[in-house]
Every structure is written in C-alpha cells, then in structure tokens.
C-alpha cells in the first residue's frame, strides 16, 4: 500500500488513485505521415524500465486531476510528483529532466 502525494491534495492512500502508464508520450503531430512501424510504436510500445520511471496518475477519488510522478518501479518509491505542464524534476530513461526540482 502506497501513500501517494497528490500535488493538490497532499498525501493520500493508493486506493484513491488510478494509474495512467508512461508520461510525456506526445500524440503524433501528423499520424497519417507515420509508417506502420512508427504507428505501432506509438500505439503499443511504452517504456518499461526497472528503476526510475516518469508516469501518470489520477487522483480519481479525490480532486480527480491527472498529474505526473517519477517513481522507482523496483522499490515503488515516489521520487517526485509534478503537475501537468510543470518541468520533470528528475531524469528518467523515458524522459530527461527539464530543470527545476521538487
């Protein structure tokens, strides 16, 4: 059971949250321009690192807002949470740090 810090509501029990998988996956600017391989990569492939991972969570039973987190997938420890649009504070293999700390 994890205590997860919502950027708006503070620490709440894991059961109040939903998981949204990898963060910072941009929708392709022009889907029609993609090859089948590129489209498959966008649709079915997500990073799956053992270690730090930038991912999305939603505080479904609380303020119902989506936010981002950097979490260690081995220890499950949350290293940082940040609001959509805010820079990613810690580098991960799926996305580099964008400056700033939290």
């Amino acid at each position: 059971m994890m205590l997860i810090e919502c950027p708006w509501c503070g620490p709440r029990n894991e059961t109040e949250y939903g998981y949204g998988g990898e963060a910072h996956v941009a929708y392709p600017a022009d889907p029609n321009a993609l090859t089948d391989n590129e489209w498959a990569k966008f649709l079915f492939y997500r990073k799956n690192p053992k270690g730090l991972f930038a991912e999305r969570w939603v505080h479904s039973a609380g303020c119902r807002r989506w936010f981002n987190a950097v979490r260690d997938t081995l220890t499950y420890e949350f290293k940082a949470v940040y609001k959509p649009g805010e820079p990613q504070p810690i580098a991960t293999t799926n996305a580099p740090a964008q400056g700033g700390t939290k």
Partner: protein
Amino acid sequence: MAEQVLTDISALRTSPLAHMAFALQQGAVAGERGVSARELAFTTQIGLRAEPGSEAHAALAAATGVGLPASVGEVAGNAEGTAVLWSGPDEFLVVAPEGTELFDDLVAALGQSAGQVVDLSANRTVVELSGPSARLVLEKGCPADLHPRSFGVGTAIATVLGPVPVLLWKTAEDTFRLLPRASFADYTARWLLDAMTEFASPEVD
C-alpha cells in the same frame, strides 16, 4: 382534468435513505461510546467551476455570499447556512439547506465567462454521523488521516469510505457529514450500521 394536476410534486419526493430512516434510528448507540447516523435529505447542492484568479472566480465568490475555498480541505461559510466545499483546484460544491435560493444568482454572476454552475442537488445525499465514536467508525474504512491535528472542525475532503467515493466533512467536534452519491447511499448507510454495532458493547482490551 386541468384542476387535478398536482402542482406541488415535492410531496412525492423520496430521499435516497428514506427507506433506511428507521434502521438508522434503531442502530443509534448511546453512551460514552455512542454514535448515531441520520440522513439530512434534500440539501441544495450546486457545482461550480472557475479558474482561481479569473473574473468568473471572483464573481462566483461574491455571489455565494461566503466566498470560495482556496485549497484542499477548506470550507467557506458554515454548515448551518451556505457552505462551499473545495473539490478540485477549479472546482467547488455549494451545500446549503433545502430551499436555498442561490442557483439563479450564481448563474447570473457567471454570465458568459468560462466556468460552470450546475444544480447537483439530487446527486448526493448527506449522512450525518455523530457521537464520541464517530471517528472510530469512519477509521474502519476511510484511509484519510482523521486525527484532529490534521482533520479539524470545518475540514472537508473527497475520499473513500470502504469502496464508496464520498465527500467527508467535519462539521463539529465528533460530528461528520458524509456525502455519497445517491446510488451508493443505501450501501453507505448499511456499511455505517455494521461499523457502529461494536460500540454498543463494552470495549474489549
């Protein structure tokens, strides 16, 4: 026929926990470990959305008469009159006694600005849980920290009770209001009754 049309349909209204009123009354526990639950039916509830700092936000804050809460846990106003609960960074819930005429004023205040005013009165019912054991009952199924040092009188949050999403509002020392959605009200009431039962017996150590 025209003369026979029922003009006051409020007589036909049934609140989500009307069928549980007797059971809740029977389930009340008296004494120093006491706790009891009852429904506060037909409150006025209005959902508001406006970005803090916007004109709409300022206009709605003025129109509620009690302002808008600034952050999680905060409640503007008071439980007896009009209260506004924080439900998200740009989202609020007005809760006021039955018949409070506020909706039209809020709609007018919002005008054409970006935002929302929605009558949500039938969405959730209110269950009031009170007594020295109220917090202990809630702690059986609510994972939020309800210790008075972090959850004082006048605090309200969105959380869960067992599997049910509820708004939980502490209106007085030993008194909480729970706002489950109407379709979850029956389950919530039965859950509470079950959780209250043990307090009718002396504490086992």
